[in-house]
């Protein structure tokens, strides 16, 4: 059985990826419209406050899902959920930088065994260095039973 406290002590809060992004205007618009958005700041690229929706921000992914030396836990990772903190508007067509670290690791036991939850946090910055948003990805891995 994986030692969760050991994983936390070794991997939490250590940046393991930096990636540059630029959200395309057309892509931001498509995401807004396909989710039914009607507010002009999300649907009108000419609007003075045009910005990406939270769902668009949740789609940004780091170059790596886990630190390079993170142990193989055996199971297939599943997407357990996303969270987005919107601090400032994120403007499509501008350069962004995402810095990723593991924010939390925890386990839950059920009838089918133990599930390990890994929360990977990406902090999204503008080219100027301003912190715009934070996106959490919750990865769920069913622990491989010991034989």
């Amino acid at each position: 059985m994986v030692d969760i406290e050991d994983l936390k002590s070794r991997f939490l809060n250590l940046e393991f990826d930096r990636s540059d992004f630029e959200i395309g205007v057309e892509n931001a618009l498509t995401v807004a419209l396909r989710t039914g958005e009607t507010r002009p700041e999300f649907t009108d690229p000419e609007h003075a406050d045009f910005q990406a929706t939270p769902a668009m921000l949740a789609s940004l992914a780091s170059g790596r899902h886990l630190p390079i030396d993170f142990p193989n836990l055996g199971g297939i990772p599943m997407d357990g959920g996303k969270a987005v903190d919107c601090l400032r508007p994120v403007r499509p067509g501008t350069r962004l930088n995402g810095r990723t670290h593991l924010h939390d690791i925890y386990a839950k036991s059920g009838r089918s065994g133990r599930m390990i939850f890994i929360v990977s946090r990406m902090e999204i910055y503008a080219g100027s260095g301003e912190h715009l948003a934070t996106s959490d990805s919750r990865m769920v891995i069913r622990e491989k039973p010991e034989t």
Partner: protein
Amino acid sequence: MTVANIGDVEFGAELAAFEPDTSLSAVTAFAAAVGWGDGGGRFSDHDRARTQGLPGALVPGIMAMGFLTTMIHRWAPAGRVERVDTVFRAPLLADQPCHISAVVTDIDEDQGLVELDLSVKNEARETRIFGTARVKLPTG
């Protein structure tokens, strides 16, 4: 019903829902726009998705997140979603209706903040996605 400021918000109120477009064409366009392509058919082709062991083509979880934030934006045209947190409990299938809901669970009138419980259910009214949101509203 829409709300203009924090004073309009009632504890326990349910937000007016809309019918999300979960058609395969909408899902495919969404997945392409977020850079996921067609996911080997996962977001574009029911038969190819089934070959991957899935029950059919999927609505991406973050697309459902988008349906929920849209509902909030429609409810509060001057509101700003500060945080949205969604748990992907089970797959949501493309080309099948889904039902979105949100209910007010807390109000901070001084800070202009509202907490919402969120859910997305499938046609059988089984919860597929649930979560919470914190929304900032004008206090004046």
